[in-house]
């Protein structure tokens, strides 16, 4: 007993003061990409060819990045001969609309709060059922981390529950393999109305690294209505937490 108390004192209090204090992230962390349009010359397509997943595109004559497809690898930034592309340490990436995941042209449109009725229902208590639909277990691992004492998801009134019947919505990871399609739809059907769906990670949004494999569905977009998109491969736990809190109107 004494040794437990001694260890307890030594381990100290470790819950982060988020969101009052900004999270400390590693120096090399790759968050929201930044495109310096002035440095990006017309006609150069160096970075476009570097991305095997087509996350970069020229839209309205400007270079833009689709965070839904981006795996946040360093390749495009290091290949840019003009130094126009870089990754910032901004972990805030989640959006409410699919088109808001395009970044580069205008101010980032972060996730907005649910409507008043949904906020009244879920604003103070949100129960989610997690479904891994072909995920590689990295998204799942960094969602699990939210339950540790560093993030302590429970203090925000958010909880991951064991049964879809006890849930207010689904938190889906993975590109939706053909073998998980019906299990995902059954789980969705078992959640009582009204319900929300969160697509967490590049796989769930667009298929991620497995995009266009004949065995996967390129994310949940064609199968379920999505209320929140959380980009990343996998999203950093703070990116997930930021998205959830924005959706609940807490940030």
């Amino acid at each position, binding site marked *: 007993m004494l*040794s*437990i108390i001694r*260890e*307890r004192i*030594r*381990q100290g209090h*470790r819950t982060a003061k988020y969101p009052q204090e900004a999270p400390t*992230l*590693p*120096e*090399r*962390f*790759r968050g929201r990409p930044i495109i310096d349009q002035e440095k990006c010359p017309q006609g150069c397509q160096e970075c476009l060819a570097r991305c*095997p*997943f087509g996350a970069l595109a020229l839209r309205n004559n400007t270079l833009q990045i689709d965070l839904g497809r981006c*795996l*946040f*690898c*360093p*390749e495009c930034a290091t290949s840019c001969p003009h130094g126009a592309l870089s*990754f910032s340490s901004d972990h805030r990436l989640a959006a409410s609309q699919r088109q808001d995941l395009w970044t580069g042209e205008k101010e980032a449109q972060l996730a907005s709060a649910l409507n008043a009725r949904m906020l009244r229902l879920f604003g103070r208590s949100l129960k989610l059922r*997690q*479904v*891994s*639909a*072909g*995920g*590689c*277990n*990295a998204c*799942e*691992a*960094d*969602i*699990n*981390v939210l*339950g*540790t*004492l*560093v993030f302590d998801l429970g203090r925000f009134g958010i909880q*991951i529950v*064991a*049964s879809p019947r006890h849930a207010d919505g689904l938190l889906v990871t*993975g590109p939706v*393999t*053909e*073998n*998980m399609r019906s*299990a995902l739809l059954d*789980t969705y059907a078992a959640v009582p109305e009204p319900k929300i769906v969160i697509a967490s990670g590049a796989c769930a949004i667009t298929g*991620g*690294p*497995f995009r266009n*494999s*004949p*065995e*996967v569905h390129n994310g949940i977009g064609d199968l379920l209505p999505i209320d929140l998109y959380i980009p990343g*491969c*996998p999203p*950093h736990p703070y990116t997930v937490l930021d998205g959830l809190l924005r959706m609940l109107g807490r940030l």
Partner: protein
Amino acid sequence: MMTPQEFGKIVKNPGTIALTALPVLAYSRFSELCLELCKEGGRIVAYFARPQPQGDDLELFAIIARCWEGELLILRCTIGRSFPSLTPLCPQLHLFEREIAETYGVIPTDHPWFKPVRFHRRWRAGSDAWNRGEERPLPGEMNYYQVEGEEVHEVAVGPVHAGVIEPGHFRFQCHGENVMHLEISLGYQHRGVEQLLIGGPHPASIFQLETVAGDTTAGHGSAYCMVLETLAGIAPSPRAEAIRAIALELERLANHVGDIGALAGDVGFLPTASYCGRLRGDYLNLTAEICGSRFSRGLLRPGGVGFDLDEELATRMLQRLVAIEKETRGAIELFFDAPSALARMERIGALSIDDAEALGMVGVAARACGLTRDVRLHYPYGGYIQTYDHCVIEDSGDVFARANIRRREIYKSLHWLKKSLRDLPQGGVRSELPPLAADTLAVAMVEGWRGELVQVGITDRTGKFDRYKIIDPSFHNWSGLALALREQQISDFPLCNKSFNLSYCGFDL
């Protein structure tokens, strides 16, 4: 007795052999040699087929490890629509043969446990091994082993589980609380990785290998890079190899520490559960210091590594590591010092060394049964050459043994890591990758945190992948979990499962 003309041999890891140097045997001779080698203590590390360029026949490859000689023997033969199963005489082949049947529609006759593995469409036209017709097979649809009797009941769990965990289906045959048999049916995570690699290496391939099993990115990523490098005839710089090994050990530490925390949570010992949950994150954050990603994404690149680890960063990581080590030891020792916690782990889910050997188990689960199986020891590679001289073994084969292997490996790994961070070799970290050798078979083995992972690439005459085989340690070890559950209480399943902590996606591919 086998003659040297009958097989190929690789003595390096990674290593290659030209296909022309691999004689094509008749299946009868091939099977004789396979069985003979396994009887002499050989172990199947890979067993797979590929279609022949012409005709309907398949070419079958067996890669057999003779661990204490540090060599891999490679056998090759052709098979037609059916071939006599070797599983009754060599149980470690049971999944390999089923996998070949599922992929190409061929039949290993008299296979004693003939069921699909991943429930996908076969890769080529023609008949199905289970006569399932042209419709896509439904996951989990197969004949399960069933026990009948008045007080016998069946418990079915999954594919969607209660926790934040990957999908899989488990069927327990129970008599009261007692589990008589557990059958595990997977395939829900099947993304078709091996098929995506045919014709590669493609620009997307490295990203798919990084996510074969996302908790083993450094493991699978390293093995893939090793296959490409050995095919291209280059070796990465010693500095790059050291950084890869550091990433592998950080991955091992994060997962082992997390697993001990999870075991503590499952037996209700909350202090260690909560400390280890946090400490796992500290190790992941150390990986992120190197490459920006907590899961080594972007670090492993063919020809070397994507990020350098300069002296200033190495010093900073060392300082952090010293602080984290103290807390890790405190959290773990608390758990292993509590008689009530130990009593929940001892003699639970025990597996005998004979069963583990028969199933061809690897890694933590095999070492917990007393088997000396560690790629770093038998087939040292990269940063482990001449730096690794320990292999942690336990012999009770129970939950405690699997927990204690992790605890001891954490301490060994911390020691190794501090030393490596202090003496990082100088030099560059990445070189260009020349074109790959044509008509060549390459094998790379890595000791991931779960155990031995193997990747085999065979190139065609243009140097593109004609077949790429990935074997995650979980492929061997899931059957071990099923066996460990026999005569246990069903309520101990979560604890047993956690003590193995196998990968679903690594198995499903």
